[in-house]
């Protein structure tokens, strides 16, 4: 697949040759059923849907579409498994989770390729970020399973029961790990619904569970669209809802569970400010801005989608940023040199286009490096908007794509006011060499994760989650256990 050469020097002798990762490490079956009670089965009504590679629009497999009856069966299976699973000594549950972590490590090349195929993300990211974090997450929570008494939630904290978990398409297997690892460690059983456009890695995970010898019914995977997720969330047989996705759906879920006993955690949208002061190390800041917004095609709820730059260094910073953006390589997700892969779906591409067009229509100035995009598949060039005001849609709405809105500020107070001027509150970035200013800013930013002189760092030991309309509850760390314990 094509990669842009440096447009300032088309004859660049250092142009990379294609370096594709081999697809042959993963064998995708022509069709997959639902994983319920330890077995794969077709949907009761036989409904299926296709999952495609967003880079080529090629159909990868046909997957069962779970309806109400299937969801019910999965919840019953999880309920049946709950008694034994929750009664297991924590040390035994821990060993299952350690096994899963190890098997994920062993199969990480296969799973990384699969993830890049189904999702469109660069193999460099699925290989170096997603998969290592998946294994680390299981390894981390495995160790908690027999130490719950010491987690700060009282002696002998009890699991909730059956967790209904609905995850997004941006980090399919990683979000699965964030959901399943703490749930199982705490003694719950789960019914998980992966996103409609990225069901495959969850179905491969079912095979990991098989290899780990996990008792049947402890993990159930029901594939489908939003209607399947809605069935799961509304099912009276679940005790816990965990959702990662859009704020709009998050609100619908909060309404659905109103008046029930179901415990809920929601990880929703964001519109993070990445704030660069005049004393920041420019080159590091540029790298942070780029990874903040272009990592995973900008399909990141905590993406640094609003760049707040101190007015005095705006020109210098934007020059450096544009220079860096010209070197970003957009193309084949399986090419090891690719920086930006495919947009996950035609629907998401349309949304990004609509918002980018709105940015232009509202008067912001659009810039993107010259960049040859593949002819098939879903692609969007890394894009920068300057002259953005706080009222613009591109400064207010989550674009969930490789689109950066640049605003300016003069004083730290103004930076805080602008950063907090959003209904979201998931993450924020601060770039400055002054330590006291970092801490002053960090204490005033209404966001659940603050990256200072870095961005988009994740770790299973580090709690993640939002303020305000970015949702509630935390995933990761000791805090992440609370979501799955009856406390």
């Amino acid at each position, binding site marked *: 697949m094509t990669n842009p050469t440096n447009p300032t020097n088309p004859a660049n002798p250092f142009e990379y040759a294609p370096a594709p990762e081999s697809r042959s490490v993963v064998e995708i079956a022509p069709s997959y059923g639902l994983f319920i009670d330890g077995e794969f089965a077709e949907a009761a009504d036989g409904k299926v849907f296709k999952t495609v590679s967003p880079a080529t629009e090629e159909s990868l497999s046909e997957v069962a579409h779970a309806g109400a009856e299937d969801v019910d069966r999965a919840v019953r299976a999880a309920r049946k498994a709950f008694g034994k699973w929750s009664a297991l000594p924590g040390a035994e549950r821990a060993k299952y989770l350690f096994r899963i972590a190890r098997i994920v490590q062993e199969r990480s090349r296969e799973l990384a390729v699969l993830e890049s195929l189904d999702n469109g993300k660069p193999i460099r990211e699925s290989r170096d970020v997603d998969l290592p974090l998946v294994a680390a997450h299981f390894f981390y929570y495995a160790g908690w399973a027999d130490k719950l008494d010491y987690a700060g939630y009282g002696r002998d904290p009890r699991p909730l029961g059956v967790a209904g978990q609905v995850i997004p398409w941006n980090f399919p297997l990683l979000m699965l790990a964030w959901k399943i690892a703490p749930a199982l460690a705490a003694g719950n059983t789960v019914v998980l619904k992966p996103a409609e456009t990225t069901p495959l890695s969850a179905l491969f995970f079912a095979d990991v569970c098989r290899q780990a010898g996990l008792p049947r019914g402890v993990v159930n995977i029901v594939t489908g669209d939003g209607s399947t997720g809605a069935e799961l969330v509304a099912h009276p047989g679940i005790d816990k809802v965990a959702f990662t996705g859009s704020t709009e759906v998050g*609100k619908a879920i909060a309404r659905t569970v109103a008046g029930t006993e179901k415990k809920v955690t929601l990880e929703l949208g964001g519109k993070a400010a990445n704030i660069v002061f005049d004393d920041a190390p420019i080159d590091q800041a540029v790298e942070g801005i780029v990874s903040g917004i272009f990592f995973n095609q900008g399909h990141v709820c905590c993406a640094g989608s609003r760049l707040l730059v101190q007015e005095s260094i705006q020109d210098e910073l934007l020059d450096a940023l544009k220079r860096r953006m010209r070197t970003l390589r957009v193309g084949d997700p399986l090419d090891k040199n690719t920086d930006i892969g495919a947009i996950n779906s035609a629907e998401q591409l349309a949304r990004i286009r609509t918002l980018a067009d709105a940015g232009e229509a509202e008067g912001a100035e659009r810039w993107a490096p010259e960049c040859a995009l593949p002819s098939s598949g879903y692609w969007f060039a890394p894009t920068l908007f300057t002259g953005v005001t706080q009222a613009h849609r591109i400064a207010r709405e989550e674009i969930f794509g490789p689109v950066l809105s640049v605003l300016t500020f003069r004083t730290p107070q103004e930076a805080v006011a602008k950063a907090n001027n959003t209904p979201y509150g998931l993450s924020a970035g601060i770039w400055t060499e002054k330590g006291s200013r970092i801490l002053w800013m960090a204490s005033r930013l209404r966001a659940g*994760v603050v990256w200072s002189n870095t961005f988009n760092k994740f770790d299973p030991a580090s*709690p993640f989650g939002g303020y305000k309309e970015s949702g509630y509850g935390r995933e990761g760390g000791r805090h992440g256990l609370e979501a799955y314990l009856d406390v």
Partner: protein
Amino acid sequence: MSDDRTERLSVLKTYKLFVGGKFPRSESGRVYEVTDHKGSWLANAPLSSRKDARDAVVAARKAFGGWSGATAYNRGQILYRVAEMLEGRREQFAREVADAEGLGKSKAAAVVDAAVDRWVWYAGWSDKVAQIAGAANPVAGPYFNLSTPEPTGVVAVLAPQESSFLGLVSVIAPAIVTGNTTVVVASERAPLPALSLGEVLATSDLPGGVVNILSGRTAEIAAPLAAHQDVNAIDLAGADPELARTLEEAAADNLKRVVRPQPVDWSADPGTGRLLAFLETKTVWHPMGV
């Protein structure tokens, strides 16, 4: 007809709301009759309107920056000061609680004592909660990584209907000790201890607006609070199940944190549940290097 032995006519108190550190009447000009357990008239309490609720939210929001930014030591001392002020007015509150809840003298006094002690208990939490709810996280990389709890913001509190004073204190103190500000809806039938608490809070160095107290119909006041876009959380302790469901649905609109009503023995050890319910965990990363 007047007796020679003229008994002194007592001076009755006009019970008023407590909003932004001041004591306004309801902007609606409405009151409702409050009676004791036997049905005898006690007072006319303000019947708060949705406008009163909105004004109280404005006051609570205005107070949030200062209160959440105060040191934990300072907040702890102020909560302790509330206990001090209350201690000096134990008889008054015992009388009001006896009337409100139909308790005998000694039982009512015990309730008030427990309420005073509850302020003391929560006062001590101010500079400890971050140490039990925070964490230093050992991430796999060269990063400093620290999680600390921060107050959620403006919390709407529907005080328990039955426990008009101990229950009330038990829902206000845990919310404010961590830096939240509150709009409190008093027990509908027995609002007088709550309205009197406003007088204690006003003389305890508590900044105006940190606690705002409204009396009236719980359902009428709670609806605009649950739907308010500038309220961050709601404690439904005083809502019946049907009202709680409606309010939780409305609260979903800006994803308020919701504490559902559940049976609580207010005289028991309160634990940390309510203390932790209105906190957000903030995690700060910074690279290590030379």
